[in-house]
């Protein structure tokens, strides 16, 4: 849709494709990452009876911009013992993995970077790609802390893909599609049509499903938390043990890329959760655009609802981070293999049985 628009505007396939692929980056990901960093600071500050950044702009809202400007100017330190090609490639790879995930995220019914039929699958696959970047960073840094962090990260992200995928399978089993756009469209109407409330089909099965859908949601939320290395699963960059884990040796803009990737990733996983369980871009209470007879208002409203839902889950991630301590590496594995995976599996079977009713 947007592609057609740009194609008509420039008359060149290449330019249209480039613009379309860069659009989410500049319109959404960077501003969001900057906003999320600011939000994280403010949330943490107010939870801790502090004020947080207050000087740059109103309540310090330009603080992150100032930080990025500072990081751009900073010296890019590369130690002599680093494996330079890998060391330079790693942050790019991590950022690309995150960025690629945004391609399949349906922001509105009007704009979706790439309306893939394998949308969910694609996102899970490219998010897993981040591991390669982190491993590279850890290895190339030639630092024992980085290496330990990278090893932990690899183990963690790969393990937690399993419960994530299991829950996704549950949803796919009910809806029969992997396309996120279709998934969102399915949950149209009011909020009781969301998957967390048993999906759009009314019947006994819907009410039977609600508790199990809540459990599914819990599992996918916890495991995506682990995939983006947030507390209580932030052991790859555990500050008190491994200093900063895999990005200990990075400075300047390369560090900023890890940093932005982390925050962008937070939104990406929140978006998946939203699309799967909370109706994607659908409004919970109907559209003003339909009410007023202004069809162009609907995508804007949808973007608002999608961002609002995503931000809410990002906020909960922050809330958890500033509340909880961090798990140990073996406990992290225990939590995944002994708790999340069996429960997700049982959940899958029970929901499968319910759908048969």
């Amino acid at each position, binding site marked *: 849709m947007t592609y057609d628009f740009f194609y008509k505007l420039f008359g060149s396939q290449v330019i249209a494709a480039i613009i379309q692929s860069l659009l989410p980056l500049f319109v959404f990901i960077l501003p969001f990452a900057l906003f999320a960093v600011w939000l994280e600071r403010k949330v*943490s500050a107010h*939870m*801790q*009876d*502090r004020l947080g950044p207050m000087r740059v702009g109103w309540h310090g809202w330009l603080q992150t911009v100032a930080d990025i400007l500072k990081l751009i100017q900073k010296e890019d330190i590369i130690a002599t013992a680093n494996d330079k090609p890998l060391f330079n490639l790693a942050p790019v790879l991590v950022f690309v993995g995150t960025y690629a995930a945004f391609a399949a995220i349906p922001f509105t019914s009007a704009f979706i970077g790439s309306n893939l039929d394998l949308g969910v699958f694609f996102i899970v696959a490219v998010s897993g790609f981040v591991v390669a970047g982190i491993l590279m960073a850890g290895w190339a840094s030639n630092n*024992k*802390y980085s290496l*330990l962090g990278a090893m932990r990260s690899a183990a963690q992200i790969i393990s937690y893909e399993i419960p994530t995928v299991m829950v996704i399978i549950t949803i796919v089993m009910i809806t029969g599609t992997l396309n996120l756009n279709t998934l969102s469209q399915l949950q149209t109407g009011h909020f009781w049509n969301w998957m967390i409330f048993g999906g759009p089909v009314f019947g006994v099965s819907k009410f039977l499903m609600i508790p199990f859908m809540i459990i599914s949601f819990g599992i996918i939320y916890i495991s995506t938390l682990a995939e983006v290395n947030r*507390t*209580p699963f*932030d*052991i790859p960059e*555990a*500050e*008190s*043990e*491994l*200093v900063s884990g895999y990005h200990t040796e990075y400075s300047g803009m390369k560090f900023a890329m890890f940093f932005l990737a982390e925050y962008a990733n937070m939104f990406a996983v929140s978006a998946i959760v939203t699309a799967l369980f909370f109706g994607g871009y659908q409004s919970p209470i109907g559209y003003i655009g339909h009410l007023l007879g202004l069809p162009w208002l609907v995508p804007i409203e949808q973007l608002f609802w999608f961002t609002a839902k995503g931000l809410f889950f990002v906020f909960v991630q922050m809330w958890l981070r*500033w*509340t*909880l*301590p*961090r*798990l*140990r*590496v*073996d*406990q992290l594995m225990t939590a995944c293999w002994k708790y999340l995976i069996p429960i997700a599996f049982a959940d899958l079977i029970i929901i499968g049985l319910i759908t048969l009713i």
Partner: protein
Amino acid sequence: MSIEVEEKISKLTEVQKRGNGLRTEHMVLNMGPQHPSTHGVLRLELELEGEIIKKVIPHIGYLHRCFEKHAEAMTYPQVVPYTDRMDYLGAMYNEFGYAVAVEKLLGIQVPERVDYIRVIMGELQRIASHLVALGTYGLDIGAFTPFLYCFRDREKILNLFEITCGARLLYNYIWVGGLSHDIHPDFVRLTKEFVTYFKPNIKELNDLLTNNKIFIDRTANVGVLPKETAINYGISGPNLRASGFKWDIRKDDTYSVYNKFDFDIPVGQGLMGTVGDCWDRYYLRVQEMEQSLRIIEQAIDQIPEGDVSSAIPKRIKPPVGQVYSRVENPRGELGYFIISNGGTSPFRVKVKGPSFVNLGIMDELSRGHMVADIIAILGSIDIVLGEVDR
């Protein structure tokens, strides 16, 4: 297994055998002196097998300032500001211990008002110190927020010290034979306000951190210190009591006016795991804060009238002799061994710092645990490097 393979294995070195034929070696990880959770400038040399710790070698001395050498060049009152700088989180108690030791050497009795104020200050300092210990312990485990809640409450105690003597960290308040200032007219009221303000905050801390499942998982059954080992290693203070041994110098070798107050000595019970694990050591400090509040509540109402500086000697010149005197510092048994040769400066001052002794058990406690646990263990024994290195 064929004979050839067996032959090959028999030729392997010890290092190769450990890796089933592959040449493996232990990774040596250098933790510190600049590391976020070594609580200062401690350097730990860890020998790791994967993430399992095989050996810990602590290297100390990065903050060595020769307190003992300094003390030999100072007159007795001039040593007091230096004692502050050893355990800077429990500065009031360091002065208290030093004053008690020199008074013993001089054979003077201080007025009762001085003793009461000293006890109140000492217990406030104990709460302040434990708050830092608990807060930074949460930080070590990964919870950032309790740290700031603890610091917020500690600020209130520091404000009390500030109105009394004008300093927030290094007080020079408790002198040999008395105090530098009498308490501020508002002090009694503000202390009572603090006690009522602080009580609910202990519960909040328990909700937020102590009873958190993740926190319990991280600390229970980790770094278990049995009672006999603890005594043999000379461990003292909360760490010793957490091992289930009821030993508190405030009661067992009483000094000042501690025998006049009614308070309990909490001991570790292994509520969440084994007796003497990290969680016990942590929780013991929470319980001790409650007991300290009890002492403050009793003492604040009974401060007798009097002059706080009447017993301060004009010129401190103890007779030839030597004294070892100890007090229950927030971190354990703080002992001063002072030898006097009859002059105005001490001939030799030796400080037995509880942190110095408690750190010695690091290797014993950490073997077989993981890297993340070493942080938990180090945090739970609560050291202050200023005192370890003196």
